[in-house]
């Protein structure tokens, strides 16, 4: 039963339908007031700016490159289908998918390990997962520049073993390493949450019904942890697709990704309408991916 509505404690008259109705309305009003600050925040700083970007994507530029809010057209959207843009898009998609896939493969066993420890050990491990957040992402990405550079320890190790010095920095592999590194916690945490809720008796039941350890995992543990897989994948895929810092610092000039491409349109090229259109295209793909993931996740449950 729902909790009785908190009403004016002064009213002690017998309850009538009108009084009961009024109390319900007061309750609804109170709920709205509680949500109001975040509502205002979201409208002011998210909905309105996004609307502006949307409007700009249909604008034109004058001879000096200045954006003018007239002659509304679809030129920027047409340009999305140029080979250059499609190539960048495809590269970003592949990289985001690879990042998501690698994170999933690396993090699932780890999340499984955490979820099956005693509560004490579990908490320590979770704190360890979150420690990277305590230092700045930019600083950590710069650290990777050192590690992956031609003077870095990886290259030195190769020389020590009699090989050639090499440099991963400014390649797609470097970007991939950086992205996987950066977004790993976003995969671990939802997976952990899903596995921690697991009813391990179900796994016992599967083992009892002649499933070996691997089959029990495939038929019971994995399907039941799908909500975690879906949430983690979305949390990694979406920021990977739009990532800016990592590709900008670790990627090469020839391997432009969506994130830095959009930034370059707004800053270097000063093509705001095109930058806006690109932003919306990325958002559209993210929306599609999210719907796809949720559908796929819902099917297993």
């Amino acid at each position: 039963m729902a909790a009785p509505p908190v009403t004016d404690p002064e009213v002690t008259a017998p309850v009538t339908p009108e009084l009961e109705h009024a109390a319900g309305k007061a309750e609804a009003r109170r709920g709205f007031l509680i949500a109001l600050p975040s509502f205002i925040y979201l409208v002011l700083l998210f909905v309105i700016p996004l609307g502006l970007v949307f409007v700009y994507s249909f604008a034109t530029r004058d001879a000096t490159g200045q954006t003018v809010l007239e002659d509304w057209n679809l030129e920027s959207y047409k340009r999305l289908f140029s080979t250059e843009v499609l190539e960048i898009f495809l590269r970003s998609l592949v990289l985001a998918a690879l990042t998501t896939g690698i994170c999933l493969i690396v993090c699932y066993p780890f999340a499984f390990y955490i979820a099956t420890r005693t509560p004490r050990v579990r908490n320590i491990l979770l704190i360890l997962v979150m420690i990277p957040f305590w230092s700045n992402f930019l600083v950590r990405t710069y650290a990777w520049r050192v590690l992956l550079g031609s003077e870095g320890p990886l290259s030195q190790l190769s020389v020590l073993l009699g090989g050639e010095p090499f440099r991963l920095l400014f390649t797609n592999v470097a970007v991939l390493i950086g992205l996987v590194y950066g977004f790993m916690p976003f995969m671990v945490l939802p997976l952990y949450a899903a596995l921690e809720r697991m009813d391990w008796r179900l796994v016992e039941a599967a083992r009892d019904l002649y499933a070996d350890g691997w089959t029990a995992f495939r038929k019971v543990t994995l399907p039941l942890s799908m909500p975690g897989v879906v949430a983690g994948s979305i949390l990694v895929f979406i920021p990977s697709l739009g990532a800016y810092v990592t590709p900008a610092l670790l990627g090469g000039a020839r391997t432009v990704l969506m994130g830095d491409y959009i930034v370059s349109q707004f800053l270097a090229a000063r093509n705001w309408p095109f930058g806006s259109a690109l932003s919306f295209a990325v958002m559209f793909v993210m929306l599609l991916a999210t719907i796809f993931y949720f559908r796929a996740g819902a099917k297993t449950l």
Partner: protein
Amino acid sequence: MANPAVELAGVTKRFGDEVVAVNELDLTIEDGEFFSLLGPSGCGKTTTLRMIAGFEFPTEGSIRIHGKEMGLKPPNQRPVNTVFQSYALFPHMSVAENVAFGLNMTKVEKSEVQRRVSRVLDQVQLSKRADARPSQLSGGMQQRVALARALVNEPEVLLLDEPLGALDLKLRQAMQVELKDLQGRVGITFIYVTHDQEEALTMSDRIGVMNEGSLLQVGRSEEIYEHPASRFVADFIGDINLIDVTLNGSGGARLSSGAEIALPGGTTGSETQITLALRPERLALYDLDEEIPAGYNRVRVKVSRRLYYGDVHFYDVDAGIGTEIEVKEENRPGVELYEVGEEAYLAWSPEAANLVTS
């Protein structure tokens, strides 16, 4: 099969260095038997069951199923199936998929799987709900799915871990009868873990009573109920009066009030403290001027409480021995009731009593 269904020999299970969950258990369960492990929570009965299933391994000892040593075999390589306390039905599978799980794992042919699943669902009257998810079923139905999921594999031994615990009383009683009938029909050995003594008494061929990791007594329901071997068993199974008496050397005993009573024939010893175990339904109250059957013990008591249970009346009577004695009288037509404060004779046949030590 000539070998007993399950043999436990010297089975001990320790968790860590201090907790002894099961202590040197020796037990033989015959083929086709309905055997109950009965005891309070934490007595080691579930751990014993889990060791037979293969979810836990004994620290020491041997578990054989139809003569085959189980050793460290994982659950999937043991010829047993379990009905879990909370049913543990797979929430992401339909009823039929749940039931088919074990058969699919053992590579039974598709058509055969279908045939057996539909037959067992028919048996538990769930054919119409084959496509439902477990969460859409009532507790009783889930229970039957769990049973069907285990039975469809035709295991050599079926392990049941308090399978009726979550059901309400009426349903539980109906399921008790159903389970017992089912066991008779399929002829599979059932090992049934419960803390409910009534459940154990009504269903089992034999009962093993456990406490603190040890098996205290094994026997048929009547043996356990009528002739408990220890104070714990007497106290745990059903209602019972435990009265401390002193043997008087002439086959009788003295209550702490000084009253002399006769004991079951063949009792010897004198000046030894011993406990008399008396079932409330074996006691009767008589008017002070009423005739009492010859040879019965009689003790003068005062009624201190009367409780009406519908089918029976419970009396607490004071015999001047420090604790009150409970008497259970059937609510027959014309039964004479005693009022609180009334004096009466408490009488019982000497053979109805049991002497228990420890």
